[in-house]
């Protein structure tokens, strides 16, 4: 009998009358479920059913999907008896490495085929609901402040640059919504990105950008660009 049926059978008859036994077969969750405390029949059944539900929803074809491996690894590596408790607390609500590389793959395709990210419908559908990546789509509220940036990057199409594209676009969106927060976090932005952000300002430079440029003057590597932009602003 498969694990789903065992769970249902025990739930129907009651965990007192038919306690759930630790699974003894090759189900992907067997290793994890074997760590549960079966001395508490109702709790172990409810936790098993909850983990099974999460597993089936995140691996809908019955086989672990490549993109879901991170989630499953977290489920399977957790040896605690209250596994779901830990999983809920520790599983970060963010992209794991595999998901990220998949997103980048699509981003890369888009960057090859067009001058805007992201256009691939799958990429779009995936990225739009992810808070971490929504900055990529923030153009509706304000005009895109860095139209020149993508022109600068057009010739570079490897994965690293695709990632760099996305990160910079997030900074760009942050800068539009809260220039102060970008200025405050300026020292923590990687130097290459700091320079790229300043270069991208070139196309739409305004007085509004002066505080950031003055801040960048204190930074030896970005100072030459900042000086150039401040001179441009003065004219």
């Amino acid at each position, binding site marked *: 009998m498969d694990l789903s049926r065992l*769970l249902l059978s025990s*739930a129907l008859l009651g965990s007192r009358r038919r306690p759930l036994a630790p699974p003894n077969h090759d189900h992907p969750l067997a290793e994890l479920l074997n760590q549960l405390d079966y001395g508490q029949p109702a709790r172990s059944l409810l936790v098993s059913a909850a983990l099974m539900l999460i597993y089936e*929803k995140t691996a809908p074809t019955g086989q672990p999907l490549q993109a879901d491996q991170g989630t499953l690894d977290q489920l399977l590596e957790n040896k605690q008896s209250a596994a779901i408790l830990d999983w*809920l607390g520790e599983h970060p609500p963010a992209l794991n490495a595999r998901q990220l590389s998949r997103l980048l793959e699509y981003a890369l395709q888009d960057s090859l085929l067009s001058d805007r990210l992201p256009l691939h*419908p799958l990429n779009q559908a995936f990225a739009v609901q*992810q808070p971490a990546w929504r900055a990529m789509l923030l153009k*509706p509220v304000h005009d895109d402040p860095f139209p020149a940036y993508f022109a600068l990057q057009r010739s570079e199409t490897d994965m690293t640059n695709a990632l760099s594209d996305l990160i910079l676009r997030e900074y760009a969106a942050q800068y539009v919504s809260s220039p102060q927060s970008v200025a405050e976090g300026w020292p923590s932005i990687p130097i290459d990105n700091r320079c790229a952000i300043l270069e991208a300002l070139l196309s739409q430079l305004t007085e509004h950008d002066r505080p950031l440029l003055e801040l960048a003057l204190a930074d030896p590597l970005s100072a030459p660009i900042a000086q150039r932009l401040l001179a441009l602003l003065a004219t």
Partner: protein
Amino acid sequence: MPNPEHISNGIQELEQWLIDLIDHGLSNPQLNSDGYWQHISRHMNDAGLRGISYSLEHIQRLVSQQHENSNREVLDRLAELYSLVCAYQQFEKLPAVRQADLEQQFGFTTRQTDLKDEARYRDIWQVLDISEYAPNYVATQTVWLQGLHTHLYAYIQQSAVSRNYADTFDTNQCYHGDLSYYPSGWPLRALLNSKQRLNGRPVHLRDGLSIDDLFSLSSQAFAVQPWLKKFPITLGKVQLHYQDSQPNLIDQAGNRLPLVYFPGNMRYRLEKETIDVFGSYDGRRFVPLVAQHQDRLHPLGRK
């Protein structure tokens, strides 16, 4: 936010109630008594856990339906409630967005002013579907939107006595406005501010994806928001086929997706035609809400 002590007591009571229920089994005749459910549902409501109270009412309806898969669904819903209990027990350790999702599951109200710092998405929002749930004099309306330029999906949910909703939406209409999401691991619930109706602008389904894409994308959504119940997606270039009275959608790759239902009056118009279908997926079942055939939209949802 309700009284924390009431919440804590409510969660403890829910945990013990779930354990007792599972100990005695789903075949326990007590489950068929209205009082059994009303008692715990009322206690959850009194504790300020309105969302849990609604979930228990939903489970009671599943129990009373007694259809082929209802036991499985009941167990799923009970397990989901238990996962909420587990999550609450370590609330402080949860990431902020998961805390927000948990509070949403509990039915805590997020004030609109709390969204003032959230990102705003100015776009033309097309209304894809409007549904309503009115178990008593308080009705709840859910409006599915999609941004024409941002491609974002979102839903507006509002409750009102006698259907006097604060905001009005019409099907097959577009609205210009700034949309803000409630915080979530997979944001969908939203508010639409500065809304202006754009008369005469056609609504159409877009971004049609495959059934494989549905599984792939939704699995990632469920991984970051384990309590997500409605994952929105538009399936493109699919065909409606019936097999032993079971409606299915089949995509161009030949993959088959069983549907919860399909309205009978639409079957003869759309069967075996190539259509796009917008709907929501809960991890097990796809609920079709609107179909598009030759640029014409056909509502499919149960109102």
